[in-house]
């Protein structure tokens, strides 16, 4: 690592998740091994084969959170992202008007599909109801950069701002881009994370057709696993140049020490352990960590037939003999797979592990699989010192994005 390189601190976190609003309820649920997967709530739930989902609670009411004149501009993805950003920024205690900090602040938000709810609702008007006109705010609501733009506008953040798409690795790609902007000196602060809200009928049908959904719960690394369970939500973080955070006396939650990004350049759907292993190795090198320095990996761990053995092989490849000493858990077993938001929700789990020396478990792991032979911290959290951790996200398209975190 270049000794002159700027280090990146995380000084705020926020979330909207199936546990409700807030990073704390999410972390506490994961730490306590309490799942948020339940029966699918959807007007078409009787028609679709999917029966289980990890949805933001029904009590979520955007009209209580946003002004009447702002709400029509916000797809559910932007609502989630704005609320998570508000929490993270409040925690970080930043004043963007002081010293014109807004000019030096970036916003980078990942999403898998963007404003899917808006697209679905407006398509229904055209195709099903025969309407000749769409809502005039359709475009600005559904564009995948909308969540980043809404955060930028809400706080007067005038540095680089954009959306990032990398399917299920979108959050980690976004967090990596934000860290690189800070390192490059293009921003001192970045608001970064991911958001997703795609429980639409067409979205559900499309996932059904992929045949990767579980018809019950999510059981990563368990031989009786039956696929992934769809989720939704947002996780947003304040990243800050370490010297900037230290100069203002901010509390650092953890250091985002390294990033690794690779593409399999192979199959559009089937994962290749070589690509995932290369991303993990790159993240370690970028963070100036050796394999033996890492205690915990928050796995991509979708609970599909294809992912779990492939990810296990990738961890063996990247960590060699240390692989068996690692704790590896998939919190998707509890918060579901929030697609473009999943890496951000999982970063909350990693920050919790680093700060409380408690590794959240892989829930629903009740049958060993010979093809999955690591320590997956089954079913109960483990109190153990965590010096450094990786957070894995892999995506359709063969995209791999890994974050390396060090304790503050």
């Amino acid at each position, binding site marked *: 690592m270049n000794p002159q390189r700027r280090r990146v601190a995380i000084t705020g976190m926020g979330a909207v998740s199936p546990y409700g609003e807030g990073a704390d309820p999410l972390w506490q649920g994961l730490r306590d091994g309490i799942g948020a997967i339940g029966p699918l709530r959807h007007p078409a739930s009787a028609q679709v084969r999917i029966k289980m989902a990890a949805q933001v609670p029904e009590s979520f009411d955007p009209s209580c959170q946003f002004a009447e004149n702002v709400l029509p501009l916000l797809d559910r993805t932007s609502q989630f992202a704005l609320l998570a950003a508000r929490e993270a920024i409040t925690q970080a205690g930043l004043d963007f008007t002081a010293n014109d900090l807004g000019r030096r602040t970036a916003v980078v938000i990942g999403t898998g599909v963007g404003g899917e709810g808006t697209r679905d609702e407006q398509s229904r008007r055209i195709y099903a109801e025969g309407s000749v006109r769409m809502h005039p705010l359709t475009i600005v609501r559904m564009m995948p950069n909308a969540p980043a733009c809404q955060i930028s506008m809400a706080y007067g953040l005038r540095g680089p701002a954009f959306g990032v798409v990398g399917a299920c690795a979108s959050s980690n790609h976004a967090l990596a881009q934000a860290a690189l902007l800070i390192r490059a000196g293009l921003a001192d602060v970045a608001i970064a994370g991911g958001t997703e809200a795609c429980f639409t009928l067409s979205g559900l049908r499309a996932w059904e057709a992929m045949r990767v959904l579980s018809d019950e719960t999510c059981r990563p690394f368990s031989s009786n696993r*039956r696929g992934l369970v769809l989720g939704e939500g947002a996780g947003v973080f304040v990243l800050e140049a370490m010297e900037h955070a230290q100069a203002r006396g901010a509390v650092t939650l953890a250091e985002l020490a390294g990033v690794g990004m690779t593409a399999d350049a192979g199959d559009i759907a089937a994962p290749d352990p070589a690509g995932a292993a290369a991303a993990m190795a790159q993240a370690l090198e970028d963070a100036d960590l050796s394999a033996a320095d890492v205690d915990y990996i928050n796995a991509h761990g979708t609970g599909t037939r*294809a992912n779990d053995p492939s990810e296990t092989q990738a961890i063996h490849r990247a960590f060699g003999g240390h692989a068996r000493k690692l704790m590896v858990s998939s919190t998707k077993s509890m918060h579901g797979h929030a697609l473009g938001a999943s890496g951000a929700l999982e970063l909350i789990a990693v920050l919790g592990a680093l700060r409380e020396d408690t590794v959240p478990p892989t829930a629903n792991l009740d049958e060993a699989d010979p093809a999955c032979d690591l320590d997956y911290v089954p079913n109960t959290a483990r109190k153990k010192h965590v010096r450094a951790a990786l957070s894995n996200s892999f995506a359709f398209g063969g995209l791999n994005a890994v974050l390396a975190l060090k304790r503050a």
Partner: protein
Amino acid sequence: MNAVPIDEPIRDRIVAVIARQVNLEPAALHPEATLKSLGIASLDAIELIFDLEEHFDITFPEDSADFNTDTVQHLIDAVEQALANRPGETGAAA
């Protein structure tokens, strides 16, 4: 599986759908050939399921196929089972 004798035209139609997917002559598809040996994996597999569902207007159960071990005959049996289970059907597919 189905006790009713196999209806040849249905079988031919299933084989034709599979043959089109793998770009082979229907005659070259032996019932005992595994789908894996025919190079059907990953996305090809779910496309094939979609093609069969569309062609016969059926819905396969979520875990109806394992493309590592299943043969062409497995798929024929699965389609016939789905046809037999279709609402309003009394026996094997017509």
